[in-house]
């Protein structure tokens, strides 16, 4: 399934791109994700935990930056993982594109997610909602971290701290807090503009 997402950030596009092309940063923004090993060549071992109510999955696998164009500010990240209990696999290809806007940057995120196995085999559209939320969360968190001006916030995870699983509850909270931040941001923008 294809998940499209875009958001505006009050930051210089090059800085935003620099932030997003660092896999550590992306992992730090991705709910329930952590990098466990740097394999070199923009390639990392990591895991993603998902928990929706009593349903859980824990994917371990490899993520790598497969394409990067600093001029066009386009990067493509590919991650492939499998569930620890053999319940299936997940594969994501995320293309990020950063463009300059009047007030800073616009990030568009296009994620093609393929899930196989039990989680993918329930017809009621829950996984579509969950995936949409996860990518939304990623966007919100990325925006937050960039605007907080701490692109290095996610320290290289050689000593990985156990990341909490992606809990839908926490997602919502983050999404909500993101919403308020966005609202504040918009107000701030307005102020900035007015001041300018």
């Amino acid at each position, binding site marked *: 399934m294809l998940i499209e997402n875009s958001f505006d950030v009050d930051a210089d596009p090059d800085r935003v791109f620099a932030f997003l092309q660092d896999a550590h940063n992306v992992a730090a923004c991705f709910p329930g994700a952590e990098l466990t090993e740097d394999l070199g060549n923009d390639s990392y071992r990591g895991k993603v935990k998902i928990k*929706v*109510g*009593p*349903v*859980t999955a824990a994917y371990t696998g490899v993520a790598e930056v497969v394409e990067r164009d600093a001029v066009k500010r386009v990067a493509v990240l590919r991650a492939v993982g499998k569930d620890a*209990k053999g*319940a299936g696999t997940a594969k994501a290809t995320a293309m990020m594109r950063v463009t300059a806007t009047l007030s800073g940057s616009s990030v568009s995120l296009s994620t093609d997610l393929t899930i196989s196995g*039990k*989680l993918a085999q*329930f*017809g*009621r*559209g*829950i996984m*579509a*909602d*969950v995936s949409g*939320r996860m990518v939304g969360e990623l966007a919100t968190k990325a925006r937050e971290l960039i605007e907080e001006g701490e692109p290095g916030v996610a320290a290289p995870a050689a000593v990985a701290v156990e990341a909490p699983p992606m*809990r*839908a*509850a926490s*997602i*919502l909270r983050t999404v909500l807090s993101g919403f308020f931040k966005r609202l504040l941001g918009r107000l701030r923008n307005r102020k900035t503009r007015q001041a300018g």
Partner: protein
Amino acid sequence: MKPGQFTYHAPRELGEALELLQEFGDEAKVLAGGQSLMPMLNFRLARVDHLVDINRLGGRLGEPRFDAGTITIPALVRQRQLERSEETARVLPVLTEALRQVAHPQIRNRGTICGSLAHADPAAELPSVLSVLDATFTLVSARGTRTVAAADFFLFHLTTVLEPDEILLEVSVRRPPPNQFSAFREFATRRGDFALAGVAALCEVDGDGVVTECRIAAAGVAPVPQRLRAVEGLVTGSRLGETSASEIADAARAEVEPTSDIHASATYRSRLTGVLVNRALVDIRTKQEAAHA
């Protein structure tokens, strides 16, 4: 389709149950009626290390309370029990109406009201009904007790504000005034299936037939039961039937953003929501007219 390994606990006292949940936290899961959790365990979609069965807490938790101002449904009240309760049919007819549409009697015999709410399947009937009844959810843990409004309880598919160490102890609703009328409508492909959409609606009507309060919630069209505020706004302040059905349907459709799946497209679900809202409002009007006849 056999469940994975877990340790089963059957506490006899609430305190004991709460201690277990506190001890095991995220590794534990409460088992009430089990009619949603057990299938997930059998599919091995859900995994738990500790299953805390609250069915043996018994007694008080198994009986609904019809007090002067409040009706309280504790954790172990079975769906079938409430469905067959004459008192419920009298004071909360919408609940009786909705309960009859939950799966099948064999499931309702064991399934609990609170369990269904805590499971928070957005296509289920009870979350939307308790939403329009403006229910108060009482959550208890070893850390203490808190209450949460229905509007704040549901967060996402299968996800509520319940912390891993908490139990949904009971859910309570204010005794409805005599001028309150309500209805539940759902449409499922097959009897007992998850609804393609459902609508719970409730109106309070003054002596002139003007709606003074309206609450409508849709099921199956969002990750949580979704209040249809715009429709509520349209209905409130006028007599039932005054606002055109197409205006109401359009408002309802505009307000929901369902996900397409193999059973129905988002467009269909939006459209169906509008249809069901109107049908529920017609039911309400019929009940109101019957009451005044």
